[in-house]
């Protein structure tokens, strides 16, 4: 199965819940509705023709200052999947609104999502529903804000932490 037929397969299975597909620079991508993301990823992992058994990467992008997308959904959570048996890659994306940004967690499908999702929560402030232990991964607990958001200033100072003297 090549990339195009993978996308076709997803579209026939999920119909309107696949919002958009494209293959920019040969990276086959499907944008999925938030409510369907867990199901789509489960099919990607378990379907005999797809078998995307590795969650290579999970990250997010903040589109706040992207030209033409200032008013659309602010975030996108990006899943890069790889199939060991079929040697194929696919990218699944899900748009997330800013207000109380949250996505279903995929920890039940892949344990590695635990750390990846913690990092996304840490950096973008997107919550993952059903995550067993949603703590910050790279920053410390007292850190204020989410540094990879586009409205987080690069030179922002954080309050000092430590024992009070």
């Amino acid at each position: 199965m090549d990339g195009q037929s993978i996308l076709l397969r997803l579209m026939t299975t999920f119909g309107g819940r696949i919002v958009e597909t494209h293959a920019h620079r040969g990276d086959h991508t499907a944008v999925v509705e938030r409510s369907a993301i867990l199901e789509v990823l489960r099919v990607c992992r378990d379907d005999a023709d797809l078998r995307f058994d590795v969650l290579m990467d999970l990250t997010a992008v903040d589109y706040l200052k992207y030209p033409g997308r200032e008013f659309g959904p602010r975030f996108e959570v990006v899943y890069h999947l790889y199939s060991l048996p079929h040697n194929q890659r696919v990218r699944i994306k899900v748009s997330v609104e800013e207000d109380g940004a949250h996505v279903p967690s995929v920890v039940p499908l892949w344990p590695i999502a635990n750390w990846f999702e913690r990092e996304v929560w840490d950096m973008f402030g997107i919550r993952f529903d059903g995550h067993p232990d949603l703590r910050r991964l790279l920053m410390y607990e007292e850190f204020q804000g989410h540094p990879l958001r586009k409205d987080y200033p690069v030179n922002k100072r954080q309050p000092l932490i430590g024992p009070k003297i």
Partner: protein
Amino acid sequence: MGERTTREIYLGEGSGTGSGSQHLYVNMGPSHPAMHGVIHIVAELDGETMVNADVEIGYLHRAFEKECERGPYNNAIPYTDRLNYVSPLINNFGYASCVEKLLGIDATERCNYIRVIMSEISRICDHLTCIGASAMELGAFTVFLYMIKAREYLWELVEDVTGARLTISYARVGGVKADLPEGFALKVRKAFKETRQVLEEVHKLLTGNRIFMDRMIGVGALSREETIAYAITGPLLRAAGVAYDVRRAQPYWAYDRVEFEIPTGRNGDNYDRYLVRMAEMEQSMRIVEQALDAIPGGPINVDSQGRPMDPASYVDLGKQGKTEGLLLIPITLSPNLAGLEKPVHQQVNVADKRVVLPPKEDTYGSIEGLMNHFMLIMEGYGIRPPRGEAYFPVEGANGELGFYIVSDGTDRPYRVRCRPPCLPPMAALHRMIQGEMVADVVPTFGSINMIAGELDR
């Protein structure tokens, strides 16, 4: 009351004995002699057995991804040096290739071969460091010294090509900074001869060593299924018996034109990881040797008038007042220091004026060259890939190293994401050390070869 183990009977522990034994929490790190980077393991111990562990990372976070968004595309190259600082060249090339994919251009053939050669040399450095350090932590200090000696030969090669040992910043979007120096192939052969000798010695010292085997076999093992579920790639996945290597699965640069094998293990324990790394070094040397034979373009031609002279000695002679003879020597800049000779520049860089700075002769010698230079340097111009996104994976020393870049059409990357190859094994570290002894943490941690720079970014 359930069955009590022998240990519980002897020590009066367990349910129903009333001894009230409880688990002990011990902090390993963030600063610990056996930790190669800053990392914090909160270990829950039952005696000396690891019941549970919580791994905390982030002590070396330097906001790599945020910093990349601030400057033009080529500004991120020095930051990528500091991701995996044992094999920085692979990060360099991975990032540059991702931007090239975004732009839709291909590097020149000679550049592809240079990238293969330098990446494989870096991979050997990385494996040498990993095995050397973890052997030292098990008491084999000699091995460490031998390995560092071999790494020194290879780093001298890196220094020859890039001008630096660690923070090399050698790649550019669309090419590399400079061509390989003269006589490089010969130096590589010499260095590899020494390295092979060292590896043979290390094989004799470690591979059949009783102490080493007792400490490594069956320790830190992770099943094949779990390794895949944790998205672990590289030597750790191959040690578990899955022959996945990006270089073979989805060849990039010139990897489809060289022959090499993918060594695999069976048990996924520390010993198999050691064997896989040892075998991979030999394969990397094979790749470099083939690539050096096949590299197109050949060495830099020297004109009949004079050898390429390096500018530093030219200035030195001038300072001493020895100018008479100098005036007669045609100035040829060395390709590796001050400038680039035009033909060499064209060999290793793509002919795309939107991406690559013109050769210095053009910048200083013609108005078109100067304008082209300014168009790439001025703020707001520079390299401007069309809107879109691209993910480019390369085989790093520790596994798949991926860059995911989103472009908004300006001269700055909108978002740069680095998929660090050693984050997944660190996320699975608690599974590897669960139920093992405290002392086993050290070789297991060593076999992961955590590099805090790329883990915390």
